[in-house]
C-alpha cells in the first residue's frame, strides 16, 4: 500500500518538478556553451548575462519551489477535495503521511543533487576537477590529523544524517502546523501559521533551556569535555533532539488525521 501511495505521489509531483529541473540543467548547459564561444560584441555580452541570470533564478527556484510545492501538495492532496479520495483508500493515515514525507524528502534531496550537477555542467573542466580533488583531499587530511580517521568518518556520516533529519523535522513541523490548523473551524491557514510560530517558539525555548541546564550541570558536576569530542557531542545532541521533535510532530499529525479529521 505504501509503495502504491509513493508511486502515485511521485507521478503527481514529478510531472511538475522534473521539467523544472530539466530547465535548470538546460540553462546550465546553455551557459556553458555560451562561455565557450568567443564573440566580443555588446549584444552577445548582454545575452550571456541574461542567460546567467536566468540560470541563477532557476537554481534558486528549483530548491525553493521544490520545498514549497511539496508542502502545498500535502495540503491539497489530503485536506481539500482530494482528501475525500485519499482518506477513503484502504490505507492507514500513517501510510498517507509516510508517503508524503518520503517523497518530499526525496525531491528536496534531489533538488540539491540536481543543482550540484548543473553547477558541475557549468563549471567543470579537467583542471577544475583536479583542483576540487586536491582541495577535498586537503580538507580531509587536516580533519583526520585533528580528529583521527575513524572519528572523521563518523562525523561525516553524522553530518549527512543531520541534514536529512533536519529536512524531515522542518517538513514535519509544517505538516503538524497544517494539521493543527485543520482543527480550527474558520481561518485554517491563519491557524496553521500561528501553530507554526508557536511550536517554533516552544522549540527554541526548550533548546535554550536544555543548553543552559546542560551548561550548569557540567559546571556543577565538574565534567570536563574534550574539545576534540565537542563536534560529536554537538552533532549527536542535535540528532537526538531533532529526532525527538520529529517523532512528536509525526505522532500529533497522525493522531489528528486518525481521530479528528473533518473535511469540508
Amino acid at each position, binding site marked *: 500500500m505504501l509503495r502504491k501511495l509513493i508511486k502515485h505521489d511521485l507521478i503527481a509531483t514529478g*510531472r511538475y518538478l522534473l521539467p523544472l529541473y530539466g530547465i535548470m540543467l538546460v540553462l546550465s548547459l546553455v551557459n556553458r556553451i555560451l562561455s565557450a564561444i568567443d564573440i566580443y560584441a555588446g549584444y552577445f555580452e548582454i545575452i550571456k548575462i541574461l542567460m546567467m541570470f536566468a540560470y541563477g533564478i532557476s537554481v534558486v527556484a528549483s530548491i525553493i519551489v521544490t520545498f514549497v510545492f511539496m508542502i502545498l501538495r500535502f495540503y491539497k492532496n489530503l485536506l481539500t477535495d482530494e482528501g*475525500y479520495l485519499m482518506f*477513503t483508500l484502504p490505507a492507514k493515515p500513517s501510510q498517507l503521511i509516510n508517503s508524503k514525507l518520503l517523497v518530499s524528502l526525496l525531491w528536496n534531496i534531489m533538488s540539491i543533487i540536481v543543482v550540484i550537477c548543473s553547477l558541475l555542467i557549468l563549471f567543470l573542466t579537467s583542471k577544475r576537477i583536479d583542483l576540487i580533488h586536491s582541495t577535498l583531499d586537503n580538507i580531509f587530511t587536516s580533519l583526520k590529523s585533528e580528529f583521527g580517521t575513524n572519528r572523521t568518518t563518523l562525523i561525516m556520516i553524522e553530518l549527512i544524517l543531520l541534514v536529512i533529519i533536519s529536512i524531515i523535522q522542518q517538513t514535519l513541523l509544517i505538516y503538524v502546523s497544517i494539521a493543527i490548523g485543520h482543527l480550527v473551524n474558520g481561518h485554517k491557514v491563519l491557524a496553521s501559521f500561528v501553530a507554526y510560530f508557536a511550536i517554533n517558539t516552544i522549540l527554541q525555548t526548550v533548546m535554550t533551556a536544555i543548553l543552559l541546564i546542560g551548561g550548569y550541570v557540567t559546571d556543577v558536576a565538574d565534567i570536563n569535555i574534550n574539545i576534540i569530542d565537542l563536534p560529536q557531542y554537538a552533532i549527536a545532541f542535535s540528532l537526538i533532539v531533532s529526532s525527538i521533535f520529529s517523532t512528536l510532530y509525526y505522532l500529533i499529525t497522525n493522531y489528528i488525521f486518525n481521530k479528528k479529521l*473533518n473535511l469540508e
Partner: protein
Amino acid sequence: MSVVLECRSLTKKFNTITALSDINLTLERGKIIGLLGPNGSGKTTLIKLINGLLKPTSGSIEIAGMAPGVESKKIVSYLPERTYLPDWMKVSQAIQFFSDFYGDFDTERAYDMLKRLNLDPNRRLKSLSKGTKEKVQLILVMSRRADLYCLDEPIGGVDPAARDYILNTIITNYNDNSTIIISTHLIADIEKILDEVIFIKEGNLNLHSSVDAIREKEGKSIDSLFREVFKC
C-alpha cells in the same frame, strides 16, 4: 452476513452542534436505499461516518461487522458530492489509480461504460464538463465490486438525460449481495429505483421503511410523504 450496515445509538457532535443523534439502523444486503432529508439534516455526516471520514462521538457503526477502518474501506465504494479526482489526471490514469488501490475494481467494465459514453480515455479531467466529470466518477465508483456503495447526491445539478444515464448505471450494476445507499433531496426522480427509504430529520432517524409498505399503507408517493414530513 446479511447485514451490511449496523448503527447503534450512533451520535456525532461538532462542538455544540449535534449533527446526528442516537441513530439505530440496520441495513441488509441487496437493497437500493434512499437516504432522504433536507440539506443539513445529517445525511452527509452519516455517510462520512460510514466511510471513516469522521469518528463517532458515541455509539457504534459497523460495516459488515467491521468498525470503519482499512478493512471496511476495501468493501465500501464512495461517491462524494464533489469532484475528488485530481484535475491533471487523464481518465485512463484515474482508472489505473482505482485499479491500483482497490482489489475489487473491474477495469474492463469501467472501459466498457466509458465507451458507451463515447468518452476518450486519454482526455484530461480538467478538459471535461462538470456533468461528464461526475459521470466518470460514477463509473469509477460503480466499477468496484463493493459490498456497500454510498452515493452522495449523484443526480444533483445534472441534466435529465444525464440523470437517466446515472439511474440506469445504478440499476444495471445492482447485484443482490451489495447495497447501494443514495443520499439525495431529489426524491421524485429516484423513488422508483428504491427498495427502502430512510428519512433523517434534524439529525434524527425519522423513518426507515420499505417503499412498497409506504405506498400500500399511505397510498402516497415517497415524494408526497417527504413533503409532509419535512414541511417548513
